[in-house]
């Protein structure tokens, strides 16, 4: 063992031998260890990586918003539920970020060559490099608005993941098959809250109606497909979100009727935003908080 250290972190690393972990990341082993990550024929590796980033970033940013409810939820049970949902989505994000890194290692290597791909991608990309839809990045608002957002998100994601289970990429298909089981519970949770609030008191009805009005402008973007999504869908590897609208509307109609809420009018034409890296100020603030320590002390281990 050497005793000459450049920094306290080096001595920590020696003390703990091979068990030292980067302080901010998952600290876990590669979640895809032993999984075959060969690129299926007919798709560009760069396209597959970007597609995985899209699905990963939706889950990662939504997870970060859900964890903001920790210590702030109206009841302990809801705090536990929201944290659990966030944890499921974080797990989906990890697998998808790792899959993105395996498909195109040049992206994580350019960001932080020494870190696991998933950590490099989560902590060292700027907002303009994130590919999530706008819906997941906007502020939580009150509990009612968060419930509506979670309902819209999980309804859309469940429809997407359900179709992705037949992807020609076995990794995406497997991640989707696990995700379907999880998001089914998330959607039921959010739907029951929207019904309980909408069909509750005048105050809770008004709050959830306001949440619906605040959330709906971000719904249209969920069904606009980018070039990458269209190419991946054509190759049988991805899902074209334009095809998810009917199922989404059907589920929303069921929930809103039970909640005595008016179905919002169809939104005006929307353009691609998050999928092409165009984001609101809300994502910049969210990432500043999520990434701050890792960027300030990039070499810290424990």
């Amino acid at each position, binding site marked *: 063992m050497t005793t000459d250290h450049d920094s306290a972190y080096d001595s920590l690393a020696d003390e703990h031998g091979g068990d030292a972990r980067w302080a901010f990341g998952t600290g876990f082993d590669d*979640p895809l260890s032993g*999984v075959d990550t060969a690129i299926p024929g007919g798709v560009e590796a760069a396209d597959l990586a970007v597609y995985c980033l899209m699905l990963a970033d939706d889950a990662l940013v939504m997870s970060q918003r859900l964890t903001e409810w920790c210590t702030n939820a109206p009841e302990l*049970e809801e705090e536990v539920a929201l944290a*659990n949902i966030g944890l499921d989505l974080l797990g989906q994000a990890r697998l998808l970020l790792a899959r993105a890194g395996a498909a195109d290692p040049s992206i994580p290597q350019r960001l932080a060559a020494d870190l696991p791909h998933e950590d490099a991608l989560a902590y060292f990309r700027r907002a303009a490099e994130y590919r999530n839809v706008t819906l997941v990045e906007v502020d939580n608002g009150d509990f009612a608005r968060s419930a509506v957002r979670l309902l819209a998100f999980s309804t859309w994601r469940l429809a997407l993941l359900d179709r992705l289970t037949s992807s020609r990429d*076995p990794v995406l298909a*497997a991640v989707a098959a*696990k*995700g379907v089981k999880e998001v089914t*519970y998330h959607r039921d949770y959010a739907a029951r809250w929207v019904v309980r609030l909408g069909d509750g008191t005048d105050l809770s009805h008004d709050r959830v109606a306001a949440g619906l009005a605040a959330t709906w402008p971000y719904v249209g973007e969920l069904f606009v497909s980018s070039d990458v999504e269209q190419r991946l869908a054509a190759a049988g590897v991805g899902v074209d979100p334009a095809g998810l609208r009917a199922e989404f509307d059907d589920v929303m109609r069921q929930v809103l009727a*039970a909640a005595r809420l008016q179905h919002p009018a169809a939104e005006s034409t929307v353009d691609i935003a998050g999928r092409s890296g165009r984001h609101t100020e809300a994502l910049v603030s969210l990432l500043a908080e999520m990434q701050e320590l890792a960027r300030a002390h990039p070499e810290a281990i424990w």
Partner: protein
Amino acid sequence: MNGLIDARTIAEAVTDPELPMLTLADLGVLRSVDVTVDGGVVVTITPTYSGCPAMDAMRDDLRRGLYAAGYSSVDVRTVLHPAWSTDWITAAGRTKLVEHGIAPPGPARERAAGPIPLTLAPPARRIACPLCGSPDTEELSGFSATACKALRRCRSCREPFEHVKEI
């Protein structure tokens, strides 16, 4: 045989850090254990939930146990397909859960063709209280101290308890 304790026996005895009454074999996450020609071991496990933080500890415990038993190399691999189901929890595992006050899962929901149905009210279920045995219990929350459990309450003995929910 090389005189070492069978690798499968060691791997099967590793416990879940969050449900320590269950071994990896009870839980159904241990998918295969193979000894290579040069005396190493390849273990494959499958995650319960995508974000389950116990996976990391399971990998470490598998490595520690197998190295301690004298195996020269230990490779713990992940397999994602087919996705884990609570149906894979063994009969012995279910008995242990009840003995520790946790209601075991029922059969996982059969998936019908078409879109996944929405469930707007918790389905009326006959989940017996693991403490007093009464079937008169209700769900308090679909989520509990770990991702894999729901929180319920017994209307007979009034005690809350956890239930491993079906996936």
